């Protein structure tokens, strides 16, 4: 039990090294079994740690380098239920991706399993660490594994382009983070998050600290794919192997957001707390812009994987709003939202993988009507689409309930409408795809309005296209059911709320890490649920695609907004230089806003 805190990283990392070394010697089935066993082991350790850290965070000092007289030189893991829960969730999705890939990659070499395990180890370390530089190193390990996984189909030029855009933008993001950490170190002389936070709180911050904050936050927001840092995500998702998309969309981008708020609460809260209203406005505007823009982009796609990718960006905007309210109730809502969204989105991506396996394309218009025999896949796809709008009892609606009640309480009444818009658009897009593909609704040969790109993705499987193996369908169905009924778990809101209160209590964090003492954390009050809005969202999400597919007037309307959509699509040019230009602009604006707000 003494070494339990390192197990979520150590087990998958050792298994990954083992698989990489033995990749020629053992069969694919054996490799898969080892990978699944290692994932289960890491997941079990995360669950244990989440349970054990419920009353107070677990602090583990590597090599026994404990703080001496309140000065921390060693590297620590600081484990609380929210972090361990995220790591465990990464384990669940990894398990689904591994199961799905069992029959999916006929030619898969074992190094794919090794890469997935390295990716999981990095994600676990990322959520558990209590050290700024350690966070950066796990970020880089996670990124490197993700780049390699994304470029798995090295034969396909599109895949190379997507991986390049992903790798270049995220690597530049990592340099922003490192520069920010270096500036902070220059000022404070410490790398432990609690130590930096405590020292910062004692002195008057200057512009150097503001810029360091902006660089670190922007670096992680690039991973979180918020506007204007979001360009890489759609490209990476459109080309990555489908099981990998599950991991990217379901947990990796959310971890970018997790890091932003972990760093804020552990490091910057003591010194920036007086400016919290300004920071709230900043994060809420970024989140709202992301949710709306990506919602529109999502509805105008015809490549199903790209559509789901924009849907993820849109929902990331909502999660940013939740976490960016800087309130434990809203944060607990965002945390439940991450689970609810991740489960549903994973199921939807797996369905798109099934379509790619069966028909060799994920282009919505080419698939017109061909999905009629796939009754069960259709059911999962439609229910997943509706769940994105936040059906009652789903994880998304449970998250929304906490998020909205906190927003109302803080006076941000418009958050509800942004949420309604994003939920409706992303849900409507999925339902439109379902109508076209599984029932053949709408005209058979329709010219695409706007400039949405055609998909010519290569099949990822070589044989058995007539049937759908249960190892592909079952993970999708199980994940969907979990996402649909997550909100019915009675203990979930209360325990998440406690975890969020623990996460946001920076003085307790500092005291626990540096002094080893624990401070009792008061539990905030529970929110009430409101189902009217989610029912409106579901209704609209059904009406919009129905109108587009069946009514002439709607087609006139879509022609009218065609030029605006064309312009939006042209912005997403697929050119890495353009993406970096937007990124640079975004960081500059964000840094200026930070200096202005925090002065």
């Amino acid at each position, binding site marked *: 039990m003494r070494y339990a805190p390192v197990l979520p990283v150590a087990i998958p990392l050792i298994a990954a090294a083992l698989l990489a070394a033995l990749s020629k010697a053992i069969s694919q089935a054996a490799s898969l079994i080892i990978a699944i066993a290692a994932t289960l082991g890491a997941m079990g350790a995360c669950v244990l740690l989440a349970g054990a850290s419920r009353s107070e965070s677990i602090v583990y000092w590597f090599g026994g380098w404990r703080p001496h007289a309140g000065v921390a030189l060693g590297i620590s893991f600081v484990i609380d239920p929210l972090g361990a829960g995220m790591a465990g969730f990464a384990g669940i999705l990894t398990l689904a991706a591994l199961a799905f890939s069992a029959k999916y990659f006929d030619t898969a070499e074992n190094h794919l399993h090794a890469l997935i395990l390295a990716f999981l180890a990095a994600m676990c370390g990322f959520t558990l660490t209590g050290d700024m*530089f350690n966070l950066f*190193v796990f970020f*880089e*390990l996670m*990124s*490197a594994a993700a*780049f*390699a996984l994304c*470029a798995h189909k*090295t*034969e*396909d*030029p*599109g895949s*190379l*382009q*997507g*991986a*390049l*855009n992903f*790798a*270049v933008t995220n*690597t*530049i993001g990592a*340099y922003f983070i*490192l*520069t920010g*950490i*270096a*500036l902070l*170190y*220059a000022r404070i002389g410490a*790398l432990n998050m609690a130590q930096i936070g405590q020292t910062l709180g004692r002195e008057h911050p200057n512009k150097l600290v503001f810029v360091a904050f902006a660089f670190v936050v922007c670096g992680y927001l690039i991973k979180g794919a918020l506007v204007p840092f979001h360009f890489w995500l*759609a*490209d990476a998702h*459109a*080309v990555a192997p489908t099981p990998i998309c599950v991991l990217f969309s379901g947990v990796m981008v959310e971890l970018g957001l997790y890091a932003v708020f972990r760093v804020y609460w552990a490091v910057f809260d003591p010194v920036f707390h007086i400016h919290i209203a300004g920071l709230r406005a900043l994060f809420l505007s970024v989140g709202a812009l992301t949710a709306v823009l990506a919602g529109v982009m999502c509805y105008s*796609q015809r490549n199903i994987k*790209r559509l789901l990718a924009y849907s993820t960006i849109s929902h990331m905007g909502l999660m940013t709003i939740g976490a960016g309210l800087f309130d434990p109730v809203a944060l607990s809502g965002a945390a439940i939202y991450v689970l609810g969204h991740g489960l549903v989105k994973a199921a939807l991506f797996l369905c798109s993988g099934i379509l790619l396996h069966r028909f060799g394309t994920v282009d919505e218009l080419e698939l017109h009507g061909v999905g009629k025999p796939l009754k069960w896949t259709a059911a999962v796809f439609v229910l997943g689409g509706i769940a994105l709008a936040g059906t009652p009892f789903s994880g998304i609606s449970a998250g929304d309930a906490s998020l909205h009640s906190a927003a109302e309480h803080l006076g941000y009444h418009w958050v509800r409408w942004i949420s309604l818009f994003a939920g409706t658009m992303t849900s409507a897009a999925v339902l439109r795809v379902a109508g076209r593909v599984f029932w053949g609704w709408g005209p058979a040969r329709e010219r695409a309005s*706007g*400039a*949405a*790109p055609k998909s010519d993705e290569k099949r990822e499987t070589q044989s058995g296209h007539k049937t759908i193996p249960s190892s592909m369908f079952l993970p999708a169905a199980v994940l969907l059911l979990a996402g649909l009924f997550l909100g019915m778990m009675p203990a979930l809101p209360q325990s998440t709320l406690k975890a969020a209160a623990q996460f946001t209590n920076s003085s307790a964090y500092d005291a626990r890490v540096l002094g080893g003492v624990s401070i009792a954390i008061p539990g905030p009050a529970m929110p009430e649920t409101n189902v009217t809005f989610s029912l409106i969202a579901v209704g609209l999400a059904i009406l919009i695609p129905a109108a587009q597919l069946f009514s002439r007037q709607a087609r006139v309307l879509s022609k009218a907004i065609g030029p605006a959509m064309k312009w939006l*699509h*042209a912005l*997403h*040019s*697929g*050119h*890495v*230089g*353009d993406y*970096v*230009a937007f990124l*640079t602009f975004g960081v500059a604006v964000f840094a200026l806003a930070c200096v202005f707000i925090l002065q």
Partner: protein
Amino acid sequence: MSYLPYAVAAWLFIIGLYGVITSRNLVHLCICVSVIQSSSYVLLLAIGYRTGRPAPVYADIPAGTPAVDPVVQALMLTDVVVEVTVMALLLALAVQVHKRLGTLDPDRLRKLRG
């Protein structure tokens, strides 16, 4: 300690970003990424440097002597190791692009857009 190293670090970061944005060749683009990376090396070393102080090897200097900060040097070394991996991956992707498309111009990568 002069401001020169910090100015160099800022310059390298900005010129590297400019290079990535305007690059017409993927290998050139990768080199520009590593120019940005060099900026972080210069910054880290500048932060830890103490003029006229010895290296932090306490074998032949008395304990407690002020020395150059070893922590940032360790950070820089870690950074080098991590980034070598990423750079190798980026260059491997560039090689694959050249194999498949016969070009290294990012303007000719036109598969994904919108």
